[in-house]
């Protein structure tokens, strides 16, 4: 019987010939990613054994550099933990710092055809690499860390076939907003992306779409493997891997074609992205206090490049805070080298070090009462980025950058 990509990876990882929706499987975990959040005194357990330290990465990202003593204590504890168990893939505050999913991408930790878990919901970002990557809870993560195993309930798969090519000014974020608006949530289901249009999307664009799968409550988000992926991995890792393709007779819950040529920039209204996006013309003119570009979904070099293109030679509107957080220090450095940083800073943007920071209302960009923000990040839940009365619109980096200049929500093509 044919299998989807997620089913085929779970079958391989559980040592079965085949799995089907509804199966409960115990799988070997290839990669476990721990974060600084794992070491807070209020959550942590004293781990006595690590199953395979060589398959573990510890990446500080939510609270970097430490903004308070609780975070500093957690960081200190984690450094001792890494030493104690001989974990070599350690990304502390410094040049290798970054949001875990960006670091995992850049270092080639997520191997095609394998299982990766991390205690952050946007772990599905690594589905861009043909990896069955899932966000799990802290207790799950400790179980995988200490036993090398975890469990999954196999869900049905919804397949999206991409055709055509995005028009200039339309981005992967707009593809996601279109899918979230048109097809809604996918709780308990896998999402699979493929089709001839996929080859026109960069690895960064694919990672944006994969990361946002968490916002649809998807179990796994996987992309088909292609030459771009294989070359990307070869440049980053010596470890061997075997990519997985879907069988021609794989069974899907639904199959949809997305014509990339037909898409336009969209904006999600506050509180949810599910069935909640509008063409920009419908919200144009909405005044903003803050514009944010960052997170695992939109802190890539592509995103900073697009923002720089939009704001070049212009200036942020008075009274608007335009914050940009690259997804890793490597991206920050590359943006500096390419001249994007100079353009962004000259336009009045505040560029922060790499962190999850403002995206989750943690630090460096928290919203106050009744403020309005337009964000290119992962979530626009009520209270997500700060005060419960703040409104959060979500859009692409180009739309956010254009809005920062205009002081109100505006179509990126409409900027004078």
């Amino acid at each position, binding site marked *: 019987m044919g299998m989807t990509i997620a089913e085929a990876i779970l079958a391989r990882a559980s040592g079965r010939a085949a799995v089907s929706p509804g199966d409960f499987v115990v799988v070997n975990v290839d990669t476990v990613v721990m974060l600084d959040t794992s070491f807070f005194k209020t959550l942590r357990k004293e781990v006595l054994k690590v199953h395979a330290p060589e398959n573990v990465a510890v990446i500080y990202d939510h609270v970097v550099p430490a903004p308070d003593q609780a975070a500093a204590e957690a960081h200190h504890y984690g450094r001792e933990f890494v030493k104690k168990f001989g974990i070599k893939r350690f990304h502390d505050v410094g040049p290798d710092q970054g949001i875990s999913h960006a670091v995992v991408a850049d270092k080639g930790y997520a191997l095609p055809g394998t299982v990766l878990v991390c205690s952050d919901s946007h772990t599905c970002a690594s589905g861009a690499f043909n990896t069955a990557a899932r966000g799990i809870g802290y*207790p799950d993560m*400790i*179980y995988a860390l200490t036993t090398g195993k975890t469990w999954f309930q196999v869900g049905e798969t919804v397949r999206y076939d991409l055709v055509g090519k995005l028009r200039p000014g339309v981005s992967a974020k707009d593809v996601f907003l279109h899918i979230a608006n048109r097809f809604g949530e996918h709780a308990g289901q896998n999402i699979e992306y493929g089709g001839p249009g996929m080859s026109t999307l960069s690895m960064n664009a694919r990672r944006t779409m994969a990361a946002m799968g968490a916002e649809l409550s998807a179990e796994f988000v996987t992309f088909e493997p292609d030459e771009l992926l294989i070359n990307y991995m070869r440049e980053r890792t010596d470890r061997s891997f075997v990519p997985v393709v879907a069988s021609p007779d794989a069974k899907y819950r639904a199959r949809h074609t997305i014509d990339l040529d037909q898409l336009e920039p969209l904006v999600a209204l506050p509180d949810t992205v599910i069935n909640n996006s509008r063409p920009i013309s419908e919200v144009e003119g909405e005044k903003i206090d803050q514009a944010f570009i960052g997170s695992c979904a939109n802190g890539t070099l592509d995103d900073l490049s697009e923002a720089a293109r939009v704001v070049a030679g212009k200036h942020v509107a008075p009274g608007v805070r335009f914050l940009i957080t690259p997804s890793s220090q490597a991206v920050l450095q590359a943006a500096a080298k390419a001249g994007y940083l100079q353009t962004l800073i000259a336009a009045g943007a505040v560029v922060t070090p790499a962190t999850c920071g403002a995206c*989750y209302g943690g630090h460096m960009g928290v919203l106050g009462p009744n403020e309005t923000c337009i964000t290119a990040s992962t979530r626009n839940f009520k*209270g997500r980025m700060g005060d*419960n009365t703040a409104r959060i619109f979500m859009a692409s980096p180009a739309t956010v950058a254009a809005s920062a200049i205009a002081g109100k929500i505006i179509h990126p093509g409409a900027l004078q």
Partner: protein
Amino acid sequence: MIRGKVWTFGDNINTDLMVPSEVTYASPEAQARAVFQANRPGWVNEVQRGDVLIGGRNFGMGSSRPAARSLKNVGLSCMLAESLNGLFFRNAVNFGFVAMECPGIHELFAEGQVAQVDIDNWLVTNEQTGTSLPITPIPVELRSLMMEGGVFSLLEKLGLIEPGKAKAKQ
């Protein structure tokens, strides 16, 4: 058999409503006091030990934050929803909070009615109307974890983590 007064919630209730940003790294007790403060202020003072939460579709969408632990710590005996976010469900299993899917549940109850939840037979009944619905069974491996307090006690027994000092709050 679980028997409890029902609180009803809608579709797409997210984890950030259960564990707001400002208590992300706070103690379990402080997190429990902040549950639903944005969408239902004061609810944590009204909910009684043993009550049952009824949710809509896609309950628990969002973050890996231990939202299920907070629902357990406010005293809920269990919850049922049209559908659950998978990550929320994983945390429910692992923190020992009984969370189940039951298509049609949202229509079965009005807030304040009493639910009888029979997990042995996967059946929920509205005590006022007498109508019942089947609950989607949970795999036996997960059911025992969920009912026996979660994964940490298992890991302690296996000698993989240090035994906890306080039993009450994980």
